[in-house]
């Protein structure tokens, strides 16, 4: 009786507890903040597409020439030695982001982030080809037909052309764009063509644009962006956020025609505890209950299902004249590009685009209620507390930012126009030549960082008798040339052991001087 009981672990397929991200169909919105975003899109994308075409002193104004290891930004040229300046610039950018976030929330996300900006343009194209929100949802649900192919096809055609142009412009920041345009195949006949890497990067960046702005959209903000995950560290109750006013809006719901706003009919604002209680119960109670159960389970606590369930019972229907100003039209949810309900309060998914404000203001206008049920505000203001703009966090961020900007400007202005290195020959310490003198070999590396040709005079300062073979030398260097020259220093037989030696290199027009200390070795 040693028969094995066949026992197999059954793979768990088909009922994963994770659901895929559902597609968000943001409804079109118009209003003050949307106009501001359109202006930002036009300005920022305009800069992106126009800047590579600008010229400066006969070269491309902004060019990051990686093969030559030089970055040109308008009148400035940056060398690899200037990397600390680039690092400092990135630190300044990060700190500026912290400062703005602490002060005014996620303005970057809503108006300036490339993800938002390109997504906005891709949404316009989607709207031109597939129609508004309702039509888009219907089109996606419908079976494939001639019209669907035509609409989807023209959308992807528009997206594709725009994405390719974006990729082309991107490469144009790294390789001269006029030359790149002249070599575009097949526009300029046979024989034209881009190099392998140029082609790769144009296509790669185009694909990234198409995928990020066309498909991933705000999923990038929710699941890929590190800033979205730590922006809350900069937030406090005085930070400008997009907030729903539950004291005014709750209990939400439909109402009789002609019912005035809470202020007009004298109901006034609810107290905070009651208002947030309404929000909690109205906010997809299932989700709130699940979150609590999960938190308890992860902490190793038993889940009290009866307690959770008691929290998620709907409240009794309010009396007709007790309802708040939120008419529960859900337009704020429909316009949201990340698909959240701002009435549930501040959430990390909120990119602060303000679409819900525009949508709600329009509804309030139609109802004859005052605007601002959802508004730019601070948590303190929403809760009826005074808002403090000047607070330690702001002052400290501001001061550090100012100091770094000053340091950067000083660093850029004070960069040396000449870089010199002198390397001793590593193969031989010294060499005795036929007339008995001693010689040492050096390699002079000289970088003329200016945009003009210069001549440099190389001299040696050392103990008596030690001199440059052939006397002081004149070295001509072209604009931005990197030179490598052999130098020989000779000394009479009276020189023994190690001697200090100083190379002095200066431009003949007196514009730059560099001193390099080195050593000379004679026989022991």
């Amino acid at each position, binding site marked *: 009786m040693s028969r094995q009981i066949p026992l197999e672990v059954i793979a768990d397929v088909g009922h994963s507890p994770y659901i895929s991200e559902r597609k968000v169909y943001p409804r079109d919105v118009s209003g003050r903040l949307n106009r501001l975003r359109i202006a930002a899109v036009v300005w920022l994308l305009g800069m992106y597409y126009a800047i590579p075409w600008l010229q400066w002193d006969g070269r491309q104004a902004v060019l990051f020439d990686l*093969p030559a290891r030089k970055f040109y930004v308008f009148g400035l040229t940056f060398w690899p030695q200037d990397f600390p300046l680039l690092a400092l610039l990135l630190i300044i950018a990060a700190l500026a982001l912290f400062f703005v976030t602490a002060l005014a929330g996620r303005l970057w996300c809503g108006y300036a982030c490339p993800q938002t900006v390109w997504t906005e343009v891709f949404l316009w194209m989607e709207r031109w080809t597939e129609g508004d929100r309702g039509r888009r949802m219907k089109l996606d649900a419908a079976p494939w037909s001639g019209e669907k192919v035509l609409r989807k096809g023209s959308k992807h055609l528009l997206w594709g052309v725009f994405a390719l142009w974006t990729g082309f412009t991107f490469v144009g920041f790294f390789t001269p764009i006029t030359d790149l345009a002249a070599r575009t195949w097949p526009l300029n006949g046979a024989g034209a063509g881009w190099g392998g890497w140029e082609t790769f990067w144009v296509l790669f960046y185009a694909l990234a644009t198409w995928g990020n702005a066309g498909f991933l959209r705000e999923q990038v903000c929710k699941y890929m962006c590190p800033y979205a995950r730590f922006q809350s560290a900069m937030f406090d109750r005085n930070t400008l956020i997009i907030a729903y006013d539950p004291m005014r809006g709750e209990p939400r719901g439909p109402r009789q025609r002609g019912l005035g706003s809470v202020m007009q009919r004298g109901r006034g604002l609810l107290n905070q505890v009651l208002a947030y209680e309404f929000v909690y119960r109205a906010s997809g109670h299932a989700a709130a209950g699940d979150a609590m159960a999960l938190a308890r389970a992860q902490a190793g606590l038993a889940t009290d299902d009866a307690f959770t369930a008691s929290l998620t019972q709907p409240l009794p229907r309010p009396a007709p004249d007790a309802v708040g100003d939120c008419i529960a039209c859900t337009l704020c949810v429909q316009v949201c590009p990340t698909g959240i309900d701002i009435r549930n309060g501040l959430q990390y998914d909120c990119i602060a685009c303000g679409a819900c404000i525009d949508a709600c203001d329009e509804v309030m206008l139609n109802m004859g209620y005052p605007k601002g049920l959802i508004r730019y505000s601070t948590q303190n203001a929403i809760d009826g507390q005074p808002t403090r703009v000047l607070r330690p966090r702001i002052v400290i961020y501001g001061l550090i930012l100012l100091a770094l900007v000053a340091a950067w400007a000083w660093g850029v202005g004070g960069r040396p126009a000449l870089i010199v290195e002198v390397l001793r020959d590593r193969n031989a310490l010294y060499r005795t030549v036929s007339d008995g003198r001693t010689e040492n070999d050096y390699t002079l590396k000289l970088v003329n960082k200016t945009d003009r040709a210069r001549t440099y005079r190389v001299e040696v300062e050392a103990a008596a008798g030690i001199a440059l073979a052939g006397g002081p030398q004149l070295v001509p260097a072209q604009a931005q040339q990197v030179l490598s020259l052999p130098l020989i220093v000779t000394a009479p037989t009276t020189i023994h052991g190690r001697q200090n030696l100083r190379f002095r290199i200066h431009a003949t027009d007196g514009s730059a001087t560099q001193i390099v200390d080195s050593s000379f070795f004679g026989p022991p």
Partner: protein
Amino acid sequence: MTDVATSRFAPPPRPLGQLVGAILWPSFFAAGVATMVFFAFVDPLLLRDMTFPRLSLTRGLGYTIGFFAFWGATAGASTFTWLLLRPPGRFDRALPPN
């Protein structure tokens, strides 16, 4: 048998797409930064002369090799982190039959 997928005491396994994304994306990001810092100080041509002077590598190819080497290292570290963060008890089960 414990139904691990629905256990309330350990988070269920992540879908493959999320896993691969969570390993590749941050490592890509870190590799990009590392590449920028490294090659700001080191010229790929000088590095070639010091290591493989016989190979005819260009600067562009040097940058590319550097980036993918960094990405390999950072992705390896991310994968290791993932391995260590997996709930160990999830994989306790009987040895396979002979």
